[in-house]
């Protein structure tokens, strides 16, 4: 079995299995704890639960003005690598075909050169995020190993993917295998670190939206 066979076969399967087990375990384990949103009578005229939840999710997409001054770099850079990652992952044809193989769903992709440019921008943005974390006293105090592992495991797929398509580094098959293996490690780590914010944000934001929204407070 070549490295590529291993990566595409047993490794990817094991990684996906661990990812699904871990994510559901963490998610359900947290959400099945007792629900205790204090049931005070909502303020008259305040939004209902569902719309307060959704508003809580939506409002956090951009910081309030006083926070935007200091937070602008983080928000903008954050969007660059989140959106960039989304474009590379979901709009690159070979990736779309992988998802189609798993789920049957597919959609049109973007030209490869476009995706490559976005990939480079995403990688640069990730590096900028790391530098920011290393240079901020606040972030240096609160950062944990998890933050660095999550960064590395997000960065490596982008890097190896770019190297593979550019035929740089090792032989193409090896680079492709490393790319897929880096995704495997990413998937395995995902449920156990902060990458889970990809799913959790909907709940944390929504709950605050409901708590404050039902008081008639601004979000």
């Amino acid at each position, binding site marked *: 079995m070549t490295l590529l066979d291993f990566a595409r076969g047993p490794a990817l399967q094991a990684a996906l299995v661990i990812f699904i087990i871990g994510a559901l375990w963490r998610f359900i384990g947290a959400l099945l704890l007792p629900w205790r949103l204090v049931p005070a009578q909502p303020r008259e005229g305040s939004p209902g639960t569902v719309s307060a939840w959704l508003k809580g999710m939506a409002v*956090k997409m951009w*910081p309030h003005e006083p926070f935007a001054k200091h937070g602008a770099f983080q928000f903008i850079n954050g969007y660059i690598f989140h959106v960039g990652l989304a474009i590379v992952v979901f709009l690159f044809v070979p990736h779309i075909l992988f998802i189609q193989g798993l789920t049957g769903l597919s959609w049109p992709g973007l030209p490869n050169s476009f995706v490559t440019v976005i990939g480079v921008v995403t990688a640069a943005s990730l590096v900028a995020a790391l530098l920011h974390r290393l240079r901020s006293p606040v972030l240096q105090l609160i950062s944990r190993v998890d933050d660095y592992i999550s960064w590395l495991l997000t960065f490596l797929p982008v890097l190896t993917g770019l190297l593979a398509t550019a035929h740089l580094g090792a032989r193409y098959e090896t680079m492709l295998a490393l790319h897929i293996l880096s995704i495997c490690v990413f998937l395995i780590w995902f449920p156990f670190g902060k990458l889970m914010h990809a799913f959790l944000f909907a709940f944390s934001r929504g709950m605050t939206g409901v708590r*404050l929204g039902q008081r008639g407070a601004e979000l």
Partner: protein
Amino acid sequence: MTAKTTASGVPYDAQGEMTDQARRDAAMKGFVKEFGAVAASHLESCVRCGMCSEACHFYVATGNPAYTPIHKLQPFEQAYKRHAGPFSPVYRLFGLVPSVTVEKLQEWERLIFDACTMCGRCTLACPMGIDIAELIKKARHGMFKAGLIPDRLQLMDRTARAWGSPATPAEDFADIIRDTGEELGVPMNVDRDKAEYLVTVAPAELTEHTKALADAAKVFNAAGLDWTYHTEGFEASNIGYLNGDLELQEKMTRKLIDCAVKIGAKTLVLPECGHAYGAARWEAARWYGGEVPVRVIHMTELLAEVVNSGKIRLKPIAQSATFHDPCQLVRRGGVNEAPRDVMKALDLKLTELENTKALTWCCGGGGGVVSNTRADPIRYKAFELKKREVDATGTQRFVTACGQCRITLNLGAKHFKWDKKVESLLELVADNLAD
């Protein structure tokens, strides 16, 4: 109760005769009881972006990274991970998350009590929607059980438990009301058997700001409302809500609501106090199964009601003014427009502060911080943020709707020899009733 210092040189207070182990266990149990799905979702969600720090007046005023809001929750989060999180059995089994030590709890006492007013500005800044202020409030429950709260707050707690109020024994309440009424020539109602409105008070109004008792009475009388003060339910500021004594919080809340029910009141009116509103309006339902049997409103809401319905008319002040939005009333409470309605009725030309309404800077004294003298140095630094903003408006009057904010801001003014007087909205209304 003596001020102590940890091995690492961090000051803390400790009350009672518990062993370190007992304190640790009490804190852990107190923490674990709080971990429901909501707390869990929040605690799982931090991505360490640091946005909360720029929202916190203590961090911004001092530049000390330790005041980063989410950092204040570290031991609480650690307890969650070790005892209640989805992977907690694995973490415990393999020692991946250590037990919270008593030293850590001691070190964190000042972060949880001195450097946080539970103002909730960080909650608005967090991109993951973590309600940090709410979680700090929950963490205080465990800290209280462990006897690791500031001595001053513990003192007030003992007094409140003994007297029913941190300001005065319940037996003296009726006298204070009557004396004030006589002194200022205002007819007072106290201990009536039946009334539509039960009016409650804040401790400062029973000591230095007793005029407020008469001001409220004037307004109620002018509006022709059927109202009373009552010895069995008078203390509204609810110190249990802010110092972590959940049992006291329940006791004090029940007193108000049960008294209102007893006298057949439809409406419970809370004084000019922020925490009173948070406790009675938004948390009373915990103990009444969701259906609190009376309508609970803040004094500011009452003023807006009687002004907007024309029950009282006001003389115009016709001056420029700026308003400090009390955190528990506006940002956490949702009473955004009522104060502005009243100020408009007083013909006060409002110039908003640069950070206003839900985004207001906290006065720096809420959550018990102003009573906790150990926190004075950072409270004064935080005050400078407020002072700058008020000065920038160039207005003649500076008004707020919370007695504790008033005290905090006036203490700050004295410290910095600032000539601005902080005024009460209730007082302005009472002093400018048009008859």
